[in-house]
């Protein structure tokens, strides 16, 4: 493959709705927010329930709790042990999964239209009737510890830890979502039960749906299977302080590798910042747009120093990390870093043309429809909209928002975010003088 395809797509941010598929919304009596896009051409339904129960809600020194909770909820229930549960899901080809990020815990379902009833029944059982089996918890915990040990073969594991240390000291975003070798050992089943009891609630949660289903059908099913779910989370999503980065400027983790992983990091915009759209467009020009982006042109296309270089920011409830990442043969690391710095300096000093801006905007706007052309992509988008309280016409207005970004806006954004000296440097790879 000429380039990892997904990377360029994920961080564009939001994509466009087609005029023919409006977003429908309904609030259930228990406060659960339903968002739906109908798509009747494939006999399937995808859904994603998103709740404020991500890794930032892990208790002190117990990082990885939310991720373990997600794994436990989909492993078995009070009515079905893990074997019976696996059999029940497989009998009807029900795909049930769960995941976490810094802010959220989500449970996903993909099911054939005909098995919709059984699918949402299983979904509700996983959500509302957790089994809390002690032996399964122990096995999951041990396997997580082994998995984290195995992950120490990857440079990215150490750069993620370094991001936390440099950008989020003493902040709930500071630890990896999966936890660390030290923190996962501290987690008990009681911690998971507490997190569940406090945060897994319908108020503040969004159930995003897409596929061969109407809102009437959806509301009836949700009422039937999730109607008895009640309550509000103890901690709300908005209750979080802006992180204060550390004074440290750099971190070098030594590993026996052929390549150096170079990451430049700083805080990026939050989901709610006024300049969010401007920054999305600016980042597309910097390193979010794959080929054609400034970093890719200068570091890969002109100099052949890397297979891929990307930039992206993580727009959470408050400011997440803004990351520029590349890997290169270790003896070329400094050369690549000099170019990276020059690209940032050039963009900060105003070397952004109207033509560059127009091209990025055209790509973002033109790619609107295709970037949400599957049910699973659509539910991801709808879940984000519901969770972060984007207006219902968000998709409709998205193109207009991108279109309205001016050269002055991106120049200002570059001054605010791309100053080379404001970035911190992470190196993971062989020992080397800098």
């Amino acid at each position, binding site marked *: *493959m*000429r*380039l990892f*395809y997904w990377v360029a*797509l994920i961080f564009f941010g939001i994509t466009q709705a*087609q005029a023919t598929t409006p977003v429908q919304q309904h609030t259930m009596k228990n406060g659960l927010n339903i968002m739906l896009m109908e798509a009747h*051409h*494939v*006999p*399937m339904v995808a859904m994603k329930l998103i709740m404020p129960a991500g890794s930032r809600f892990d208790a002190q020194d117990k990082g990885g709790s939310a991720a373990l909770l997600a794994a436990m909820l989909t492993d078995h229930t009070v009515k079905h042990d893990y*074997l019976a*549960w*696996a*059999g029940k*899901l*497989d*009998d*009807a*080809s029900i795909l049930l999964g769960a995941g976490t990020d810094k802010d959220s815990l989500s449970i996903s379902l993909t099911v054939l239209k*005909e098995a919709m009833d059984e699918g949402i029944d299983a979904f509700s059982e996983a959500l509302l009737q957790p089994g809390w089996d002690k032996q399964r918890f122990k*096995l999951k915990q041990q*396997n997580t*510890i*082994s*998995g984290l*040990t*195995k992950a*120490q*073969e990857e440079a990215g594991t150490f750069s993620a830890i370094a991001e936390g240390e440099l950008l989020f000291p003493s902040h709930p975003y500071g630890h990896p979502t999966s936890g660390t070798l030290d923190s996962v050992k501290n987690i008990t089943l009681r911690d998971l039960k507490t997190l569940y009891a406090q945060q897994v609630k319908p108020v503040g949660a969004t159930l995003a749906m897409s596929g061969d289903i109407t809102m009437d059908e959806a509301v009836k099913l949700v009422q039937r299977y999730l109607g008895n779910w009640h309550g509000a989370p103890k901690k709300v999503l908005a209750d979080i302080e802006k992180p204060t980065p550390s004074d440290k400027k750099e971190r070098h983790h030594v*590993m*026996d*590798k*052929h*390549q150096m992983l170079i990451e430049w990091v700083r805080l990026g915009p939050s989901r709610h910042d006024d300049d969010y759209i401007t920054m999305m467009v600016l980042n597309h020009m910097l390193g979010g*747009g*794959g*080929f*054609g982006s400034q970093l890719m*042109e200068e570091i*890969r*296309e*002109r*100099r*052949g*120093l*890397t297979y891929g270089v990307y930039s992206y920011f993580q727009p959470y409830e408050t400011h997440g990390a803004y990351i520029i990442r590349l*890997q290169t043969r270790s003896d070329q690391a400094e050369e690549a870093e000099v170019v990276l710095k020059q690209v940032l300096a050039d963009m900060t000093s105003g070397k952004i043309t109207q033509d560059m801006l127009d*091209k990025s905007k*055209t*790509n*973002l*706007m*033109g*790619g*609107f*429809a*295709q970037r949400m*052309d*599957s049910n699973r992509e659509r539910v991801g988008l709808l879940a984000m909209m519901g969770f972060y309280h984007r207006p219902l016409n968000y998709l409709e207005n998205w193109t207009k928002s991108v279109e309205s970004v001016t050269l002055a806006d991106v120049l200002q954004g570059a001054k605010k975010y791309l100053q080379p000296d404001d970035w911190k440097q992470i190196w993971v790879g062989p*020992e080397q003088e800098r």
Partner: protein
Amino acid sequence: MWMKKLLLLCVLGLMAAQTQAAELKRVSFDNGVQLIVEEDHSAPVAMVQIWLKVGGRDEVPGKTGLAHVFEHMMFKGSKKLEAGEYSKIISAMGGNDNAFTSTDYTAYFETIPSAEVNRVLSMEAERFAHLKLRDKDFQSEIKVIMEERRMRTEDDPNSRMFEELSAASLRLHPYRNPVIGWMQDLEALTIEDVRAFYKQHYVPANVTVVVVGDVDFKQVKRTVAKTFAKMKARKVAPRFNPTEPEPLGAKRVEVVIPAQLPLIAFTMPVPSWVPHHNDKQAAAIALATEMLAGGKSAILNQVLVNEKRVAIAAGAGYDPFTMGLDLWYAYGSTGIGQDTAKFEQAFWALMDKMGKELPNERKFEAAKRRMIANTVFSQDSLYLRAKHIGILETVGIGADEKDRWLDLIRAVTPEQVRDVFKTWFIQSRATTGLLLPKAVK
């Protein structure tokens, strides 16, 4: 119970109808170019894929990686377009483009607004016919590819072990070589190799154009007739497809590199699907593999991870859609305190048992339903739909066989699954690969 069975039969019935709903429209041009279109008007989007009957298997010794290098060079400029300009034009229309190379094929694809399909097809034909292939671009791109290899293989212990394992598993068959190429070969390749490869393999008779999305077949046909079909016909030699000798006994390879935890894997050469020749056999291997590694009740996971606790993860893989042979694999990722020898013992005990007994009926039926449901779920992605058509066509199975594969899966019997374990998944046919961690700094 009866009610449940009835319901599931209905589900299967409907799925059969749905998976066969999209009709493939095709035309074959005089110079050998094939066009296959699947119209889907649900969104104003289209997927264009250009498939070539050339991949890693077509490289000669000492020149591994060449098919993939060539894929990169397709973005380095043609008579009408500068290096990199192709992707910029696609980007400006709001599209994305990329490419991939496998052992059996190379494909170039674009996701674009459907109004741009004809323009993109013309651009694809232009670069195909008039590639520049300058040494300056090659020198820069080969460096990029070496970085790609360092990232994907040299610095990834699991990948590195699988690369060594594949090389040790096969004596003759070209699947023993990595598609990205051995580093020693990459270092020795020249622009002359690339030019010779272009001349030999990038000929009309090796091309299949696949378009899925909001398009009109007649319109696409007219465009292809004016572009790809206009190219001069050239002869193509039969593809390199040797018969791998049957293994004479178990083999073993150890890879000692910096890593944290061991990984153990087994490979066995098995037949892939040759329609009307080994229909039952290939479908049975696919279903047996699905039972072992698919879904939440995957047998490898249930027995080796959950019950015997000899690994933290286990899986297996079979690709029925190749040119006659697949290197089937299974693996176990062992955790802290888990021993690969115990995994190995438990794995072969399980294979042995499955070769002696008929499979669990419920798991057997669930595996069939999953394979069919997954086909419905993959209809959700234009990329996957086009890719499946392209693969079937390029490896010689034929895209029109697409729906019959599901019929074959439905028809597999429990006895046939048992026999797969007796015939193919046996220790004396296997090569074992072990990743053994060297102390990490």
